[in-house]
């Protein structure tokens, strides 16, 4: 990218970021002020304060909602800012207006995921500060002699500074990540299937980190990480604290130049104001304005190398680049697993272990470490990472109910599997395929346990449950079990579970599935391999 264009891009990015941050800072400052006022009331009434008194102040839910709103607001602003910059070059038939609701849902979900990791710490800091400041002031003889009105004013003065500082710090910590994550998502959606490059752009204002100055202009394939200070990051705002704190860098993704688009990146109208970008939210920008011819879309999509075909060192490097930071905190030593699926990821995910049930949401995977031990951890990891991969690859994307979508290859497999097991038939034929396993009755599980002497009880139960849930998904719980009937109302949610169990079969194996339904078992592995090869 030309230097002048790069400067314009970065200036526009920072200007948009500053403006977008203001609304979120206001929201957080108001929240801090409201909660502080509540606490001051309690302090003056009791003339003391402790953790117990603050149970209804600075709640986890209150913070979570504001993280959700922050990511939604900044995310939508930047997804539209990016789309508007490339308005004239958007792939024919694609309009940013069609993505407003999926984007909104995705950014809110991202905000909730990020918030889930932050709120406990942020809440604890806020409450400790309230108690600390009040106790300090209480020891001041001048404060002690004042009446309630003056005391309230003195407390408010003290807290106002803290509230503003804390709100700004908190928003600034999230904003760069939210903006670049949205840019990434926007590029993915408005240039579907395009072969793209992305370029790291640093604010070269003399305050930049040396290693971010060195990263300025670094170009990599859209799906590959940048290497910054030896760290692999998909875009600015991600990585360790040394790369993230106060970072204002941006990333410019664009289709690779070809004969028609050689000067595309240097000609685009970069510099859309935040007002213009925000005005796009809810506006149909698929205007009558003629668009240039379709650019750099490779039909069919570029073939992804199958994990097993990649040279060992490449596979290993890619896996390590995508391995979540908390991996060793979650995976017990002695766990046997095949984690080659990590090489299919495009962004390093966040992995946490808690005693809450396991789930995947946006780029966050939570694992129930109370339930899964070294015997079963491999299975749940391949399942939840399977969900993340089918979402990021676009095979089956779930974005809040009606926005969900699966590709034809997934719909066709689902239909062919239903035909194979005969669940569409009527009468006795309908369940004939499952007669040998007594329709997954729990008594049947106990009766076949002895056929798998090499499995521990935990391994057997989780393996059997995976088989039951695969067929539960395939038959909408007519046969099998594992997820609620309401979970399986939409066909895409059934696809998602079939995909996740197929990931288990491919990467972890399932002796119970293989023995009970060998043909279907092989089908699932082949299915995943075909999807990877798309």
């Amino acid at each position, binding site marked *: 990218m030309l230097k002048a264009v790069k400067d314009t891009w970065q200036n526009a990015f920072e200007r948009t970021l500053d403006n977008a941050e203001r609304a979120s800072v206001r929201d957080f400052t108001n929240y801090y002020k409201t909660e502080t006022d509540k606490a001051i009331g309690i302090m003056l009434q009791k003339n003391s304060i402790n953790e117990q008194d603050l149970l209804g102040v600075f709640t986890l839910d209150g913070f979570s909602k504001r993280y959700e709103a922050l990511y939604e607001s900044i995310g939508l602003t930047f997804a539209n800012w990016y789309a508007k910059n490339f308005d004239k070059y958007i792939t024919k038939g694609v309009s940013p207006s069609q993505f407003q609701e999926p984007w909104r849902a*995705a950014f*809110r979900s991202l905000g909730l995921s990020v918030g889930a990791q932050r709120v406990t710490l942020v809440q604890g800091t806020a409450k400790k500060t309230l108690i600390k400041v009040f106790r300090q002031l209480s020891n001041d003889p001048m404060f002690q002699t004042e009446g309630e009105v003056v005391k309230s004013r003195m407390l408010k003065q003290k807290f106002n500074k803290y509230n503003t500082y804390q709100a700004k710090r908190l928003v600034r910590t999230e904003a760069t990540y939210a903006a670049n994550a949205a840019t990434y998502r926007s590029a993915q959606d408005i240039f579907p299937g395009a072969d793209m490059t992305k370029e790291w752009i640093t604010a070269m204002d003399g305050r930049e980190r040396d290693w971010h100055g060195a990263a300025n202009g670094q170009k990599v394939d859209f799906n590959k990480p940048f290497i910054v200070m030896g760290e692999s990051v998909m875009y600015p705002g991600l990585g360790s604290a040394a790369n993230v704190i106060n970072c204002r860098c941006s990333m410019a993704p664009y289709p690779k130049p070809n004969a028609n688009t050689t000067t595309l990146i240097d000609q685009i109208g970069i510099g859309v104001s935040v007002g213009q970008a925000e005005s796009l939210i809810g506006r149909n920008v698929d205007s009558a304005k003629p668009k240039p011819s379709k650019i750099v879309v490779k039909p069919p999509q570029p073939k992804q190398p199958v994990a097993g075909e990649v040279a060992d060192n490449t596979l290993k490097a890619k896996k390590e680049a995508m391995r979540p930071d908390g991996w060793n905190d979650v995976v017990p030593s002695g766990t046997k697993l095949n984690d080659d699926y990590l090489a299919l990821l495009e962004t390093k995910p966040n992995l946490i272990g808690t005693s809450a*049930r396991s789930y995947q949401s946006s780029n966050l995977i939570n694992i129930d470490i109370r339930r899964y031990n070294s015997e079963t951890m491999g299975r749940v990891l391949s399942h939840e990472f399977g969900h993340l991969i089918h979402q990021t690859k676009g095979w089956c994307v779930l974005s*809040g109910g009606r926005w969900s979508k699966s590709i034809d290859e997934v719909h066709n497999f689902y239909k062919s599997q239903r035909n194979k097991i005969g669940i569409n038939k009527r009468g006795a034929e309908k369940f004939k395929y499952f007669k040998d396993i007594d329709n997954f009755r729990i*008594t049947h599980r106990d009766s076949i346990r002895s056929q798998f002497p090499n499995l521990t009880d935990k391994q057997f139960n989780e393996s059997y*449950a995976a088989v039951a849930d695969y067929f*539960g998904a395939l038959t909408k719980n007519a046969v099998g079990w*594992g*997820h*609620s009937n309401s979970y399986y109302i939409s066909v895409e949610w059934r696809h998602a579970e079939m995909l996740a169990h197929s990931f288990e079969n491919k990467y972890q194996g399932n002796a119970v599935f293989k023995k009970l339904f060998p043909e279907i078992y092989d089908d699932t592995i082949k299915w995943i391999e075909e999807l990877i090869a798309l």
Partner: protein
Amino acid sequence: MDKLETLLNEYLKLHPEAETPLNYYNDLGEDGLIEILEQANGRQIKWTADFTGDVLDGGQIQYV
């Protein structure tokens, strides 16, 4: 007859029209499901999946 089977039979006898709690197995696991059934005390169990975003395998249990 194992503990889970006993609890399931008792529950479905009490709530013959209800969804089988085995459908919550993926989220709760064997121990979690047994715990939920033991704590039901005659109440029906309802599962609400999380459809607000792209949360997979998420949801909440309620007694009704």
